């Protein structure tokens, strides 16, 4: 989960590790109460962020990209799971373009009327 930078750098196409940070917004409550309240096992109330290029990209009323460490510090959350999703050849700039492209769909404003 820590700063997944480029690795395998000798090739011309650098690859970047992509992690999925999985948080439990219920802080364990869902797991505890799920069986009683819902009659089912609930592992967690998931929040996820994509960690790539050393930054955490997530959606919270808008798309946010912050350095992963900063995210952990400012939100006081620790992922209860960090899944390694794979390695990508997509560079940061291209990914930023992607974010730009999807952001209209993922902004608080689209929630309005």
């Amino acid at each position, binding site marked *: 989960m820590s700063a997944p930078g480029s690795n395998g750098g000798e090739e011309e196409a650098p690859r970047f590790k992509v992690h999925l940070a999985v948080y439990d917004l219920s802080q364990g409550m869902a797991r505890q109460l799920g069986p009683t*309240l819902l009659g089912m096992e609930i592992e967690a109330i998931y929040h996820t962020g994509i960690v790539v290029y050393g930054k955490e990209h997530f*959606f919270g009323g808008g798309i*946010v*990209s912050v350095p992963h460490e900063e995210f952990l510090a400012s939100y006081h959350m620790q992922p209860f799971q960090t899944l390694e999703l794979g390695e990508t050849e997509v560079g940061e700039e291209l990914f930023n373009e992607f974010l730009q492209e999807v952001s209209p769909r993922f902004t608080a404003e689209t929630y309005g009327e």
Partner: protein
Amino acid sequence: MVSDSGKGRGAKGGREVLIDGDKCVCLSLLFALFVYVCIRKPTSPFTHDTLLPFIHSLPPDLMRWNCNNFSNEAALFLLGVGIPPHILALPEQVFSSPLGALLRPVIEQSQGSMRPAVPGFHFESYEGGGGGGAGGGAGGGHHHINNPPPLVPPHHMPPQAPLPAVPLSNPWANMRPAAAAAATTTTTTTTSSSTTVVQPTRSKQQHISASIEPVLARHDKPLLSIDPPAALKQTVGTVITKLKTLSTAAAATAAEEGKEGEPPLLFSEDIALLEATVAVVLQPLTPLPPALSSLLLRTLLPPWPAKAEFFTLSLLRPLFLRPAFPTPALLDHLLAKLSAATATPSSLPSSSSSSFSSPSSVVIALSGLSNVCAHKAGCTLLLYPSRITVATDAAVAALRDDRPAVRQMAAAFLANLALGMQRGKEGGEGGREEGLSDVVVQMVCGTLEGLREDKDMTSVFRRLLCAGRVVREGGREAGGLVISLGFDEVLREVGREGGQGGKQVQELAREILGMVEE
């Protein structure tokens, strides 16, 4: 449209975004859990009123636009593979539980009309078989006239394709931000270009409030709790699965304890019966298997665990809308339990089988009993002298509950009973005895006493409906009773102030006052 408020991508520091995390399906699910906990715990600091702002702050369409969908889409872009499906499936998973299915309408309804509602109890005025015997088999015919679009995803498929272009049938689709949730709901379109949801008028009261007709005359239908077909199907399916699971679990325990001789909770024919029910539950004209009501009575009794009660009641609630379904034995059992549950107010729910095991069971039971009033067959059963007395006493006792959900439902039940009595009289059944019956007195006193202390306007309005109906029928004598007990002062005050419930309550109070003073 593009993030222009600093909340967008790369927001400086990102600190303020924390609160915006609310706009995440995750938190709203958490909220749903909270609602339930609140209702269960009498000591909870949360009330419906304090939680409503939360509901309103939730954006619509959360199923499709949440943090996990974003992560999924980003992962697809980067790697061509999505995130683990169980994360994406969480909302559906939660809503496939009986509680989830029950919680959906509250969120939806609150979003729609600001009217505090009770989880799972989507009240509609409904013309069932109430008009006479002719309506006999058509109990379900009108169920979804005013209902919102199907609320439950009709299938269990995990959302494979992220952000599909086709709108998902999605529980959150009707949700709107607080600003739009004004008292009058007409139609509204939610969000994104691809999804246009027209929200039907939720409440008849609001719908016709423009007319000059007196309030009482406008409300000539019982208050019923009706599920849209998809939700109904889902609830029934889940409940039946749960009952089967409980039965299997009990058998396993018995085997462990070396009690193989014990009969199973569910015999194979019972299972067949339950499965047959799933098939016909959406076909109002197909009769339910006759043995079903006795089976469901059994699941309410030992040796079935208390857990089965909530599930059984969830199933009874919609089934009671069918004229042929409610049986005297079932009604007697429910009324006896209700009586026991309300006899000792504010006591913790007892685990004994003579009472309901939880407050939510009380709420659903009251809601189910209200549904019995949908048709003449049910009314006749409930109005049977021994039952109506127990029912009225228990419901009046429940009006003293400190949970608005219980009060709302109890008041609805009373209003329906009063309507049933009025209709029974119109039908010329049984010559009226002279003087006011104990039930009428109990209804008038029970609903008007402490009316001002009830801060829940839905409950207040339903209480007034009950009182108004009884007073209208009781004529001079009922009016005299109201005045002699000083309730005219209560009515005057409510008529003046009305509370935040507004016009509807005020008008009705004045109307009753007018009748009383005549």
